[in-house]
């Protein structure tokens, strides 16, 4: 009896020691690999996981002087306060409207452009146009906004053009009615050309013989597009849409805070911009951390849901 339990204990401890022992052997065998890992591990712990732990300040009244351990614990106070302001729906709806607009208008643009580019058979024409189309992707958002300010501002060419054509003019940079269209327009201008690459890559995988067979069967161009080309990029489209849905609450704050001003505040304040304004600018760290946490959680839920939908559609999805 006693020997039996002794054996059991022994095997248990051997198992426990085993893991660390095996790790030790591995370490001794590949010392350089583990040394190489050190910077990366430190990086992920300090810059990715420490901020995750730092979410704790969203549950306290964080004071930079007291630090995260001594600050007063507030529980869910900030979450309640956010929903009590009634302003929360403004920020959320601004975020959602901008996101839906960008999915409806920005998302299909590169697909359409890729399909059109795919029909071009003159190599040189295609190369030249592609080279031009990729240019804005490399231009920084500051430059994109600056160009917008110069062209659409009160001295700008478009501003003057609208004035001379319509008699009246639009305050492109201040009017809340045009703000979202400006953002969507800038995004379409910047990323449509670049976005075609991934769809064009998917189109390269189409077997040319399919087209030949379809032609022999008498399919015209529209039929070939519908029955061969579109199914070929379907899974890429779904994957890109899943990725896009996951970031439905990300409105590109680096872009928005450049375009927002006192005139268009009613529409430019999305959740991201709210967190930036009140957190980094005004120093309400705990409050904005709580808002940011809710946003992150919704994003994770969105990724999981849209991935499930992708699976339901018979596609591979993200994971």
């Amino acid at each position, binding site marked *: 009896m006693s020997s039996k339990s002794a054996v059991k204990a022994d095997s248990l401890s051997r198992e426990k020691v085993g893991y660390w022992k095996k790790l030790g052997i591995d370490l001794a065998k590949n010392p350089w690999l583990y040394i190489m890992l050190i910077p990366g591990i430190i990086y992920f712990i300090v810059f990715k996981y420490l901020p*995750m732990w730092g979410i704790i300040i969203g549950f306290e009244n964080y004071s930079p002087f007291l630090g995260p351990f001594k600050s007063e614990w507030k529980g869910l106070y900030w979450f309640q306060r956010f929903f009590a302001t009634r302003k929360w729906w403004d920020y959320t709806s601004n975020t959602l409207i901008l996101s839906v607009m960008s999915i409806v208008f920005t998302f299909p643009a590169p697909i359409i452009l890729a399909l059109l*580019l795919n029909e071009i058979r003159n190599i040189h024409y295609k190369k030249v*146009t592609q080279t031009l189309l990729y240019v804005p992707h490399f*231009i920084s958002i*500051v430059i994109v906004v600056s160009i917008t300010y110069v062209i659409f501002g009160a001295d700008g060419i478009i501003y003057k053009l609208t004035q001379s054509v319509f008699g009246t003019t639009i305050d492109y940079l201040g009017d809340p009615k045009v703000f979202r269209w400006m953002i969507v327009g800038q995004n379409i201008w910047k990323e449509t050309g670049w976005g075609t*690459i991934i769809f064009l890559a998917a189109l390269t995988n189409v077997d040319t013989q399919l*087209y030949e067979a379809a032609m022999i069967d008498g399919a015209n161009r529209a039929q070939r597009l519908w029955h061969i080309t579109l199914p070929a990029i379907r899974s890429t489209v779904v994957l890109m849409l899943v990725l896009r849905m996951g970031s439905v609450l990300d409105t590109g704050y680096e872009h928005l805070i450049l375009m927002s001003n006192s005139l268009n505040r009613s529409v430019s304040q999305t959740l991201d911009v709210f967190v930036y304004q009140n957190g980094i600018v005004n120093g309400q*760290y705990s409050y904005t951390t709580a808002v940011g946490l809710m946003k992150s959680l919704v994003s994770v839920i969105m990724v999981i849901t849209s991935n499930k939908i992708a699976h339901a559609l018979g596609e591979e999805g993200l994971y």
Partner: protein
Amino acid sequence: MAKKDKQEVSSVELNGKVITIGNGPVGVYRTKGSIIFDILNYTIIGLVALTTVLPIIYIIFNSFATELELQTRPMFIIPNVWSVDAYKYIFASNKILRSFGNSIFITICGTLINLFFTVTMAYPLSKKYLRMRTPLLNMVIISMFFSGGMIPGYIVVSSWLKMRGTYWALLLPGAISAYNMMIVKNFFQGIPQELEESAHLDGCNDLTTLVRIVLPLSLPVLATFGLFYAVGHWNSYFPAMIYLTDDKMYPLQLILRNIIVTAEAAAGDMSLMDPNFVEPPKQSIKMAVIVVATVPIMCVYPFLQKYFVKGVMVGALKG
């Protein structure tokens, strides 16, 4: 057969394999509708490509116009009178030049740090026999789906690590892009194991194998991701805006933002002479600053296009 050759419109070399892009179906039986479609398609693509680059061309040419011509002539692209006054004005103070130098410094240091961290983490993780591989990969993947958010990240960098006001705050927090690291890791996994084994037999350890065998084989991949990171550093303004306190350290993008978006006087130091000198920057000066900030990107654009397209394709095909 000859017809089939024509179908291969353009090709791209990827990992030594030639892939044809855009095997657009050649109309064997060309109908009237097909020809009309082609004409329309070529026109549309041409127009889209033109509108994509037109704003940039407009800014470049107009930056060489005189302020008088900009004010009096309603709209034009090529100026009647060429002048470099705007450039003389912005280079009169060393503000722009200094920020240009800062940007170059940040870009070079940042990219080297990025590549170092990415490679040293990707290489050990490409070894399937490493015991810590799975938990570490999980650690990386989780960080891709969930993050602490803007404010905790800001607090970690600025108040816990005390990096506010130093360039470290711009260089370290983004040292590894998890997504890029995974692609580099996949690339390392694709390198034939025999090569590294023979290096080990010749007395190399893991570090010397990495430096002497693996890195020389991965130069195209390193160039691709080096450029990814470099463009990211050159174009970023947000970390500099929230972390830097001394405006002598500002990068070009932030200066550009201050000049145009917050309408700061372009020749900052000149305003010091006269405290009441608050003149909004003139149109030509804004344009000249935009051109100065865009030129470096345009100079390396041929490389960017080549390597970036490859990078996107590698990610798309492997992911």
